């Protein structure tokens, strides 16, 4: 049961942190329609995180709620990948990070749609519908960046080059992930990676953008070793719960 909860948290924490980064962009979009589209994705992801946190709380049977798990852990207990916590440097970074995560989520949830775990199977099928839209939007932006202006193409390539080292972690299975693979609960990340690679290549080809050659993988998030950014994110997220631990909101 403990392995399952930890695996759930990998999924929920990725969604929660990415959604947090997107929610920081509210009222800062390049135009109003895009501002609202970003919030839509943030809302889908926080909905996903909420469902998975609640289920993790049910499995844990410690009397805690999904909110307790989301808001009251120490930094090292969060299992999100480093990619999700990377800052909103500019719109090219925001969208490239999103594109990498959308492709990952799309194939992860495709795989999990046939999980032996009923909850994961159901939430994957639901999320897949949403992620299909997310992926369409971020793919279109990557193609637009590449085919738009010299500035947009340069900015997109810079974001890709900078974020690339964080993508490897998405496909590094945790010990719990490997254990659950034996009973067909978790997704086969090798398969997800191969599909991810194909999709990235396809969109980069259409966008005339390049895959970086440096294959170095920056790891840590899944094991609770985060970037310097994470502490500031949690300082914000946990502020009221930390300051007023007895309050109910």
């Amino acid at each position, binding site marked *: 049961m403990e392995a399952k909860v930890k695996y759930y948290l990998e999924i929920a924490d990725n969604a929660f942190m990415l959604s*947090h980064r997107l*929610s*920081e962009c*509210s*009222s*800062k*979009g*390049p*135009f*109003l*329609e*895009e*501002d*609202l589209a970003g*919030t*839509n994705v*943030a*809302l889908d992801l*926080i*909905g996903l*995180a*909420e469902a998975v*946190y609640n289920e993790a709380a049910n499995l844990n049977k410690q009397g805690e709620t*999904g*909110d307790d798990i*989301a*808001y009251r852990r120490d930094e090292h207990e969060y299992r999100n990948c480093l990619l999700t916590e990377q800052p909103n440097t*500019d*719109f090219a970074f925001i969208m490239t990070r999103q594109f990498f995560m959308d492709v990952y989520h799309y194939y992860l949830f495709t795989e999990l749609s046939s999980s032996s775990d009923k909850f994961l199977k159901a939430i994957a099928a639901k999320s897949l519908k949403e992620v299909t839209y997310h992926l369409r939007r971020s793919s279109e932006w990557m*193609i*637009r*960046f590449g*085919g*738009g*202006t010299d*500035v*947009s193409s340069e*900015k997109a390539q810079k974001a890709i080059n900078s974020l690339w080292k964080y993508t490897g972690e998405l496909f590094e299975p945790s010990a719990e992930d490997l254990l659950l693979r034996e009973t067909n609960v978790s997704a086969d990340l090798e398969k997800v990676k191969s599909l991810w690679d194909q999709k990235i290549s396809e969109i980069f080809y259409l966008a005339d953008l390049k895959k970086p050659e440096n294959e170095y993988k920056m790891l840590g998030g899944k094991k609770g070793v985060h970037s310097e950014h994470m502490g500031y*994110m949690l300082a*914000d*997220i946990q*502020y*009221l*719960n930390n300051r*007023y631990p*007895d*309050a*109910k*909101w």
Partner: protein
Amino acid sequence: METLENTEELLKVFEAKIDAEIKIEPRDWMPGDYRKHLIRQISQHAHSEVIGMQPEGNWISRAPSLRSKKILLAKIQDEGGHGLYLYSAAETLGVSRDEYIQWLHAGKAKYASVFNYPALNWADIGAIGWLVDGAAITNQVSLQRTSYGPYSRAMIRICKEESFHQRQGYEIMWKMMEGTKDQQRMAQDAINRWWWPALMMFGPHDSDSPRTSNAMKWKIKRETNDRLREKFINKTIPQAELIGLKVPDPNIKVIGKDQMGENIYEHSDINWDEFWSVVNGNGPCNEQRLNHHIRAHEEGAWVRECAQAYNAKTNQ
């Protein structure tokens, strides 16, 4: 060609439509001052929705639960959506969204002054929904019957969402008042700071509101500032009392009942010096709000240029 004679004829047709409660549509002839009034009012309304995303946005990253974060995000998204409907309605008057935004950045166009106040604690999110959106709805319900078709239709959609916003704001205040001493203190602090700015949202007294008379004659406005303000006060004081909040006005007292048997209240006059000071740029956040909008717009310039260039290439 338009001559004086047919202008008079057109004006008669226009006024007959107004009298018969027939909506004026974008292609219809309308007096220049009517168009000018609408351009000012609808764009100001659109800018208010968009600038209004900022004070609430100040608490998204610190929203204390998953549910509250979702609701706040969705609410702010709604406000942006209202901005979109209203810019679209305003564009039917022959001015583009780009131009409206330029006027805003140049200080030629205003937005609701209430958003120049800061959101300082979590209960402010409740107070903004309950009081600021509550005041806005009181005004907007009457604007659903406004004489300009696109504006009226935008207001009908907006009102549906705003009533949800007001309820979620009140729910936050209610939860805070049911909560710890600290939460109750935050809630009272929030109403202390937002009560008067919310009352100011209805604008100056009718006697000091130079544009009211034309706007009423053309049925752009359907009720006066003071009448709408009274409605809001009478509706809101019992809501505050129900959850144990005190309205920050020592002179509040019941002076009668309306036709529905609800209390009518007497209250202190508004500090109009503060109102005009904030309108004229001296609120706590005027500069911050406008600079934020300008910065986001400028930082997004390359994205808009990219999208335009890409569209131009692919549409060839």
